[in-house]
């Protein structure tokens, strides 16, 4: 058994956690109202006071969904740049991690998990997909609201289709993200880190994010 590493490491600071909370709550409201619109579920619309009000809530929540991360990026541009740099860089270790899916999938054997950075290869892919999905949802959503009068019907229909299908994929991704971060026994320790105090056990970090842990040790 390896030597026990004591202590905690700050993985997500207050601003990051706040942005994550805001984005999560906005996403839930947007997803719920959006599903209500698409499948014409009166029960969902009625929670918000009818379909027109549900639409109003959807649109203004969309503004929060857009402005929340925008403000975060503006206030933490260096951090966001590093994040983008991390999730867009795939090393041999990442590809090796992907081959075994980090040991998260029961029927894929993973005797050795390659060392990972602050985000593992799966999280990198998720991060990229979430950013791309958010951008697609935002750039189709605002025209559907603000320029619905002047867009051609064909382009408007295209916006609706992209908006809906991107949202569906995002819901599935977020559901998977929630399962791994909050339920899966191997990784649920991450949940409190992002949703509560921002800290994660150093022992866990040394195992799950060995490269990052080594970097932190060097800085110290």
């Amino acid at each position, binding site marked *: 058994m390896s030597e026990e590493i004591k202590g905690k490491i700050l993985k997500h600071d207050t601003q990051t956690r706040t942005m994550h909370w805001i984005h999560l709550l906005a996403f839930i409201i947007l997803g719920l109202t959006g599903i209500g*619109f698409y499948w014409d579920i009166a029960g969902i619309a009625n929670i918000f006071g009818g*379909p*027109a009000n549900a*639409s109003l809530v959807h649109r203004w929540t969309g503004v929060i969904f857009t402005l929340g991360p925008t403000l975060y990026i503006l206030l933490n541009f260096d951090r966001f740049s590093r994040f983008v740099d991390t999730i867009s860089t795939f090393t041999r270790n990442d590809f090796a991690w992907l081959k075994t899916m980090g040991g998260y999938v029961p029927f894929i054997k993973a005797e050795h998990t390659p060392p990972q950075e602050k985000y593992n290869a799966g999280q990198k892919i998720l991060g990229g997909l979430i950013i791309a999905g958010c951008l697609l949802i935002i750039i189709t959503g605002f025209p559907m609201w603000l320029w619905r*009068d002047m867009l051609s*019907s064909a382009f*408007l*229909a295209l916006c*609706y289709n992209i908006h809906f299908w991107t949202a569906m994929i995002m819901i599935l991704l977020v559901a998977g993200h929630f399962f791994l971060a909050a339920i899966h026994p191997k990784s649920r320790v991450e949940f409190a880190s992002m949703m509560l105090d921002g800290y994660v056990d150093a022992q866990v970090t040394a195992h799950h994010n060995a490269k990052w842990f080594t970097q932190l040790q060097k800085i110290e």
Partner: protein
Amino acid sequence: MSTAVLNNGVIHVSDQCKACDHCTSICPTGAIQGRLGEKHHIEIRKCINCGQCLINCPFGAIDDFSMVNERIRKALDNPHQFVVVQEAPAVRVALGEEFGLAPGTNVKNKMYAALRKLGFDKVYDTEFAADLTITEEGTELIHRVFNALGVPGFEHAGPLPQFTSCCPAWVKYAEDNYPQILPHISTAKSPQQMFGAVSKTYLAEKLSLDPGTIYSVSVMPCTAKKYECDRPEFIASGYKDVDAVMTTRELAQMIKTAGIDFVNLPDERADQFIGSSTGAATIFGVTGGVMEAALRTAYEVLSGEALGKVDFQAVRGLDPVREAVVEVPVKALGGKTLPVSVCIVTGTRYVAPIIEDVLADRSNYHFIEVMNCPGGCINGGGQPIRRDTY
């Protein structure tokens, strides 16, 4: 007589409405109700049945009342009915789109063949009736001009300016919103209704048929024509002028349902009503077309001269409101030239200020053409819907 169309209108928003609210900006009369996110509905009282919302709905969630099964197929299946059909000029250049042909392809000869295969007893062309409308409307304009000039014998002619009357969406708009303007609208029936009336009178006589057995169908690029054909006043012959209307889309659907290989049909000609029609009728379906056609007639009658130059370029184009002055030498005034001021409006949303000017006696126009649909009947609510154009 069925009053379904008159009571319930032609255009309806279906349950498939995604509440995108695009249609409210398309509707020229504000008849579509509903906020963004809320399923929309049409206020029948305000709707002019133009179908622009239908062809512009991103989700195909707006329908028009169909007369195909309840009226047309029943008539075709009835051996005691003699079913005649007319097709508007704008249909022949759009129908091909439903069969993969390039927009604008003139498929009139295949269309005649298809209509015969569908079982219509006689296949005529609305162009002949369009000529009748032009003659009526042109003559009426001349009478109104003579009345305005104080020429004796024309005291009972209506006031100037004269508005065209062949667009049923525009006529309903005027009735609903500006009843005071009605004396200015030409009393001439639209080509569809003229054809219907003639089919129940002259044609019945010519073919030695009981008018009661003639069933008159029209193929139109327009959904408002369905409303027009059911208007109770159009029974001049004692029979309903036009019994049923189908749109270009519905004709295409009938052809497809019947399994007719439209593209490979042999070319056929329309049955002859009297003789050939003029080129003036052909341009009826495009904005400025009625005006141009009527001006040709008026010019020739007023000047007593054969019209050398037949191209009134000034009234062509696609701007929503266009105007021109045509110098017409008037024989009755000793050859004195009369400047006839004309205006063309494409889109009823643009007509209100022009009507307000007329009612306030500020208008300088003599003749005003109004067509509801952008560009004229060619973009009517019954035309093929292109969802692949951005």
